[in-house]
């Protein structure tokens, strides 16, 4: 019964995407499918944290953005001139900064509390900051002077972009470890505000540190794991095959590229889903749920609750980081200004809640379904508005205003979807067993 229903729900998503292909275009359908798959991965990440451990991460955007950053750091060619000009300086400055913080932590741990400790601490931090800026600023200026219009940054490692996917996860893991260590280690838990803050900081760093990934000048032309359309179009064999399917070379090549991505994404999603399911069913997963359902009892049995929470917070963030790297790979460019909390944090939450907190399949379904709505609400809204405003005279201010406003209908719709599901099906479409 439940199983049939779930299969039905997934079939519904498939039909919706197929309908898009038939009614709009297969390119749009594949685009929705691909981003839906990525969204499903993000939802799995958030579901690990919220569904299995009750951790409230409202900084998903930050971890997704870190994944994006990883693609640049791994796959773009290194800018040798920039490295020669200031690469070492920047590395040295970062090491200095990290050293200062490490020294401060040691001081806090080793020295007895008191005014002397405070004084020494402040002195170390100020001296460290001045030294850091003294090394950092000229190095950054030197790097950013090298061909600012084209590069102006250190570049990446020039490795295959597929490597960036796990690296994105690693970056996210590192940041999640620091955040979790601080926010979960406090006497009470402050994860929500900590993640909200760190996400904004990550975005601020990506926008401002031009030496790192060109900031708001964006990095375009990221390498691809799949062939370029233009290469395909020049390949006579491909053109022939496309023609056999009744497609012109341009359409054929774009479809081929998107479909290749789809295959890659389905593989990654299935791996993640399998891992998440295995984790859930393992003794470790059972313990996570035991802690979630009765933390006091788990603590009394000697379980290290904070430690477990830290683990699952890192794991969930890793999944978001990987998904972020994949998403940037799909886009082929890193544009820091596109990272918006409504889209990359709160929309993922809608996906998890709508899909069903605590259920990995629910997260996947929620990710695909909500993403479909997010994309399609706009054309549907436009259609609706045209219907509503049909009676109004062309060129009337109200009519134009209403037609313009369809672009914002999707936010409204997402809110309504979330509230309706919470109200009438609070466990989500595929509830936790």
């Amino acid at each position, binding site marked *: 019964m439940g199983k049939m229903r779930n299969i039905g729900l997934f079939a519904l998503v498939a039909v919706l995407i197929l309908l898009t292909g038939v009614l709009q275009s297969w390119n749009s359908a594949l685009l929705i499918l691909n981003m839906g798959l990525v969204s499903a991965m993000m939802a799995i990440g958030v579901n690990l944290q*919220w*569904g299995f451990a*009750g951790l*409230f991460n409202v900084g998903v955007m930050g971890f997704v953005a870190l994944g994006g950053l990883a693609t640049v750091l791994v796959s773009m060619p290194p800018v040798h001139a920039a490295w020669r000009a200031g690469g070492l300086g920047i590395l040295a400055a970062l090491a200095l900064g990290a050293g200062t913080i490490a020294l401060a932590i040691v001081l806090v741990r080793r020295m007895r509390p008191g005014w002397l400790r405070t004084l020494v601490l402040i002195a170390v931090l100020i001296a460290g900051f001045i030294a850091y800026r003294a090394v950092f600023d000229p190095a950054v200026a030197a790097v950013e002077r090298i061909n600012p219009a084209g590069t102006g940054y250190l570049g990446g490692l020039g490795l295959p972009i597929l490597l960036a996917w796990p690296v994105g996860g690693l970056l996210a893991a590192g940041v999640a470890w620091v955040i979790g260590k601080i926010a979960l280690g406090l006497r*009470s*838990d*402050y994860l929500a505000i900590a993640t909200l803050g760190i996400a904004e900081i990550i975005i601020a760093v990506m926008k401002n540190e031009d030496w790192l990934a060109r900031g708001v000048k964006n990095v375009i032309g990221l390498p691809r794991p799949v062939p370029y359309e233009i290469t395909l179009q020049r390949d006579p064999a491909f053109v022939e095959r496309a023609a056999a399917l009744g497609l012109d070379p341009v359409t054929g090549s774009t479809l081929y590229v998107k479909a290749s991505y789809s295959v890659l994404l389905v593989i990654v999603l299935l791996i993640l889903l399998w891992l998440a399911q295995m984790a859930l069913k393992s003794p470790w997963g059972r313990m996570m749920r035991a802690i979630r359902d009765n933390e006091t009892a788990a603590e009394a049995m000697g379980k290290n609750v904070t430690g477990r929470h830290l683990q699952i917070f890192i794991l969930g963030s890793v999944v978001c980081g990987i998904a972020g790297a994949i998403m940037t790979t799909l886009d082929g460019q890193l544009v820091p200004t596109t990272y918006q909390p409504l889209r990359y944090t709160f929309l993922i939450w809608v996906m998890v809640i709508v899909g069903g907190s*605590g259920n990995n399949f629910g997260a996947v379904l929620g990710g695909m379904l909500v993403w479909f709505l997010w994309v399609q609400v706009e054309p549907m809204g436009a259609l609706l508005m045209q219907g509503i405003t049909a009676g109004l005279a062309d060129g009337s201010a109200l009519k134009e205003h209403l037609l313009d406003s369809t672009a914002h209908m999707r936010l409204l719709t997402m809110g309504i979807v979330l509230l309706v599901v919470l109200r009438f099906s609070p466990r989500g479409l595929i509830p936790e067993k």
Partner: protein
Amino acid sequence: MSGSAYQDDRGNKDRSITKAGSPGSATGARRKGTAVPAPGGPFLIGENMTGGYGKGPNILENCTIAVDEGEIAVIVGPNGAGKSTAMKAVFGMLDLREGSVRLDGEDITSLSPQDRVAKGMGFVPQTSNIFTSLTVEENLEMGAFIRRDDFRDTMEQIYDLFPILREKRRQAAGELSGGQRQQVAVGRALMTKPKVLMLDEPTAGVSPIVMDELFDRIIEVARTGIPILMVEQNARQALEIADKGYVLVQGANAYSGSGKELLADPEVRKSFLGG
């Protein structure tokens, strides 16, 4: 995972988004009902009460507790005997499956705790019985919240009864000592000028000296003419001041009688008063 999805917070304890502690539970038994005239009988009686929390098993089995005007009635018994539960049942904080509660010639079984307060019940819970962040005086004012008349006289009377409260009336109640807090709690309940005062273990967690003082105060309150129904852990001392005593065992009346009778009863002495 049991219960409503809305009660499932997945163990989240994030203090940056949610306030600690559970939302009010006293509303659990918010029934809309009216009082029915039922003349005769003692001033306050919970008669043949049977019931438990929610859909759980019965904690009370055919339990009867009563107090008459000018009396102190005390409920004693071993741990887990259902003493506090009996008190809460009288106050309407759990649903009775059988039995009734009558106050001053009215059947109030279907009234909510809030409505019972309006009918003249004053209740002092065992824990969290004061507003810690409010001053002593504000605590008393909140006690009188349902009164729309001038309650300054009542407040003066309470200050006369508990002089220490007058002294500390501008201080936050949470900063007071345990015994003083209990006085605030009793004073708060007295602000409605209740017809009956119900105290749930008023001496829990205070030192023996403070306990003696609290008992003295309670006798003083009783002398002002308010009947008192009280649950007590310190059975011997409580029975000494009691006009009427109830010994509960497993939610049912085991012994009852005047305080002196119970203190003299060898069975009671042996089982509950340590010889």
